[in-house]
């Protein structure tokens, strides 16, 4: 199930890997997953089995250990029995009995025997030890009546009730003295084949416990002790809590009739610990070795069930981890490819950006160039126009000069070479000279106008309507006297332009005079139904996005402008008028004036219709 889910996850998340050979990776993945699962199961099972085997081995080991202990206890007790037997048959005791049988009293004679016996017993007491701990704690010699003859503990006055030992063999007893259980060995002392008394030894339970009974660990929950047939016990007083001991006893007493070792696993009260309890008979001694230990000391903390569950959980965790690793790496790959693409896109974008920047730069450069070129061109235009103008001026001045010089020379010739020069012809020559000189003055005046125009001119914000109005006022009377109609149509709102008012007036005047000239010419050839008319209009024009423009239109219904001269009319010194009517400076000056105020001047002409001159000037915000 997990495998299918995994497979689904992988196939759904890795479209990137979908190549022509679709089946192969899936198969391989499936096989790998199966193998992995099988391997994990195998691991779990084998681990479990080995754990169980370990448990068994541990238990066995523990059992063997306990048996060994029981055996060593048996040896120890055998040694003690032998000791006691030897002591019981010692010379000193025997001497005592001899002397006693002889009838000697304690006062006279037996005392020394008792003293020697005591010495012997004390020596034994001191001599017998294991690693510094005494094996015996007390010896007592009794007579048949139970009176204490010798007591190494010195409690001679007490009557000691010790169970009569069976003839010949030392016996082990468990009694309780002063609320303390004690292990005793007692044997009979015989003299001449009859029981003459008894020798009892107390075993030092500290030695017993520390060297034989207590299990080799520092665990306070484990412990061992000795049990006899009657249910008396010798148990460590400090180690195990009473509850455990009672339960242990209860359990073992139930089973004490069993001849062999038994192990009982029993959950105990506090903390619900499972305890392993053992009760082994100590060989050749009528006692049993009792031991208990928490099960987890032997078999480890995990029950088999928990082990399986744990391993299973671990396996699941491992698989889940694997699955998530795969999933994550798939995600990673996808992300990575996207990232690479994004990076590529970014580089492309970047290069495009660079291109754009370069182009922008080039365009800016081109614009700069353009501006420069325009400035240069304007300047060159200016220079050219200047040149042209100069050429024009030269040409224009040249003509009247022909007349001046020619007539002057003729005068001189006449005066020199004629006997009778005609005064009238000389006068006529002189008048012609003066007239040409006047013409030159006129030309020069116009040039001066032009020159004045070239210098810095002051501008101010004026209402175009007012400037047009003042220009019209100058000519209104003149037009009327010549029978010419002069119409004006100004815009309702003021048209604020930043210009020199006088210059603009002159331009308007120039245009009006041209218009007058045109209509007068036409009037000369037309009949009475022709009404010469000159119109002046002002308006504001605003296209979306471009700044507002003031438009001044002067149109006339005169004879118009011929097509073949149309493009020359703004050239300096171009004129269609008769030589004495105009010098041709007017329109060029007008154009230059208008353009210096950042305006334009154009004309539209259709033959037999209105001839129209348009002046456009940028409207500026009113100042002041």
């Amino acid at each position: 199930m997990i495998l299918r889910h995994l497979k689904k996850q992988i196939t759904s998340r890795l479209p990137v890997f979908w190549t022509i050979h679709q089946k192969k990776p899936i198969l391989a993945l499936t096989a790998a997953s199966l193998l992995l699962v099988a391997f994990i199961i195998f691991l779990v099972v084998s681990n479990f089995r080995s754990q169980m085997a370990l448990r068994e081995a541990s238990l066995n080991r523990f059992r063997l250990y306990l048996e060994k202990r029981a055996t060593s206890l048996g040896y120890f007790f055998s040694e003690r029995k032998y000791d006691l037997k030897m002591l019981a048959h010692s010379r000193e005791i025997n001497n005592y009995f001899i002397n006693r049988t002889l009838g000697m009293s304690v006062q006279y004679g037996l005392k020394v025997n008792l003293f020697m016996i005591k010495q012997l017993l004390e020596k034994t007491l001191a001599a017998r030890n294991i690693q510094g701990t005494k094996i015996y704690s007390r010896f007592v010699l009794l007579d048949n009546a139970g009176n204490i003859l010798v007591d190494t503990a010195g409690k001679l006055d007490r009557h000691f009730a010790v169970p009569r030992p069976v003839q010949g063999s030392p016996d082990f007893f468990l009694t309780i003295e002063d609320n303390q259980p004690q292990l005793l060995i007692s044997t009979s002392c015989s003299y001449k084949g009859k029981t003459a008394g008894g020798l009892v030894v107390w075993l030092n339970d500290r030695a017993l416990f520390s060297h034989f009974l207590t299990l080799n660990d520092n665990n306070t929950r484990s412990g061992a002790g000795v049990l006899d047939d009657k249910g008396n016990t010798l148990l460590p007083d400090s180690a195990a809590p009473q509850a455990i001991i009672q339960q242990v006893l209860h359990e073992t007493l139930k089973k004490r009739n069993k001849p062999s070792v038994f192990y009982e696993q029993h959950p105990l009260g506090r903390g619900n610990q499972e305890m392993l309890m053992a009760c082994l008979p100590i060989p050749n001694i009528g006692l049993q070795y009792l031991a208990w230990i928490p099960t987890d000391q032997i078999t480890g903390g995990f029950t088999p069930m928990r082990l399986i569950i744990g391993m299973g959980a671990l396996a699941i965790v491992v698989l889940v981890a694997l699955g998530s690793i795969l999933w994550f790496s798939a995600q990673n790959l996808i992300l990575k490819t996207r990232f690479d693409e994004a990076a590529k896109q970014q580089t492309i974008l970047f290069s495009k950006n660079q291109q754009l920047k370069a182009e922008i730069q080039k365009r800016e450069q081109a614009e700069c160039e353009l501006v420069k070129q325009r400035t240069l061109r304007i300047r060159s235009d200016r220079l050219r126009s200047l040149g042209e103008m100069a050429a024009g001026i030269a040409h224009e001045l040249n003509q009247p000069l022909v007349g001046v010089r020619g007539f002057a020379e003729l005068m001189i010739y006449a005066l020199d070479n004629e006997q009778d020069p005609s005064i009238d012809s000389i006068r006529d020559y002189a008048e012609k000279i003066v007239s040409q000189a006047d013409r030159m003055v006129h030309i020069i005046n116009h040039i001066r106008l032009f020159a004045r125009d070239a210098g810095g001119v002051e501008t101010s914000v004026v209402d175009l309507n007012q400037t047009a109005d003042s220009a019209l006022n100058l000519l209104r009377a003149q037009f009327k006297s010549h029978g010419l109609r002069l119409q004006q149509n100004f815009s309702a709102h003021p048209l604020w332009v930043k210009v020199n008012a006088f210059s603009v007036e002159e331009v308007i005047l120039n245009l009006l005079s041209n218009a007058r000239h045109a209509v007068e010419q036409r009037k000369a050839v037309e009949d009475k139904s022709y009404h010469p008319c000159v119109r002046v209009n002002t308006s504001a024009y605003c296209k979306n996005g471009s700044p507002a423009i003031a438009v001044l239109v002067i149109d006339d219904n005169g004879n118009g402008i011929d097509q073949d001269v149309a493009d020359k009319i703004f050239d300096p010194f171009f004129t269609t008028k008769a030589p004495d009517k105009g010098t041709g400076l007017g329109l060029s000056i007008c154009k230059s004036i208008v353009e210096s105020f950042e305006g334009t001047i154009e004309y539209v002409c259709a033959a037999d219709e209105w001839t129209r001159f348009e002046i456009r000037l940028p409207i500026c915000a009113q100042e002041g």
Partner: protein
Amino acid sequence: MNRIRQHLCHLRTVWAPRLSAARKVCLLLGFTLALNLTLIHPPSLARDLQDVLKAGKLRHLGIPYANFISSIESGLDVELMRKFSAYLGVEYEFVNSSWRDIVADLTGKTFQTHGEDVILTGKCPVQGDVIASGFTILPWRKKLIDFASAYFPTGVWLITYAGSDLSPVTPTGSIQNDINAVKKKLNGRSVLVLEDSCLDPSLYKLEETGASIQLLDPSRDICEMIPLVIARIVETTLMDVPVALIALEKWPGDIKIVGPVSKRQEMAPGFSKSSPELKAAFETFFKRYKSDGSYRRLVMKYYPSVFTYYPDFLK
């Protein structure tokens, strides 16, 4: 019985030559002294402390006796005297003597006793400076020598062989009663005694008991007394308590104690009446020796069982 024979042999081989040699020396010295006495020198007296110091030697008179003097180097009294001579800063010399002569060897005066009376009979050379030999303080002895402070408890018991039909007395709690009971039992029995010692029968009025008193042959030693009883050569013997205690250990099942013959007695070292400074020196020495527990150790070494019988000893 083998053991008895061995012991007797030991006695004979070790001590007998010394005894005879000592006797020879004694005689010779006696002769010289007698000559000296009659001719030039004034009668010689027992030496006091200064003489001992000048001589650089302490002569210890003793009789091989149980654990008091068991050899020339061991024995309660031997060790005690050795220590005393070391304390004085002099050499130690053991002078073997006998029960009969030991007092005369110390005092230089021969004597005869009759019960508690003493009669000086003559002079003899002084052989030693101090007697320390498990020497019981007896009235007649007190008349002749000065005893130092008592240093060992004792008493006299009656001992018989194990197979004897004499049964031990039952202690009554009063020692006098016990003594009387013992004396009653002695009627018609033979009892071995040693004259001039603490086992002298006259001390205990044994002649009144009706027992047949056998005097130990002078050639025999005190330590042979009990073996003689075991050998049933005599029926009973007197013996003092320390020795009896040892004998009980040595011959278990061969002897039995019948009962007391004397009340509590004391032993002490003896000094000549003309050696008060020596005695005083010994007292000083012994006081210290006792107070630091050394004496108790010494006693424990040789007579460990004495404390069971005499619980108040050295308390």
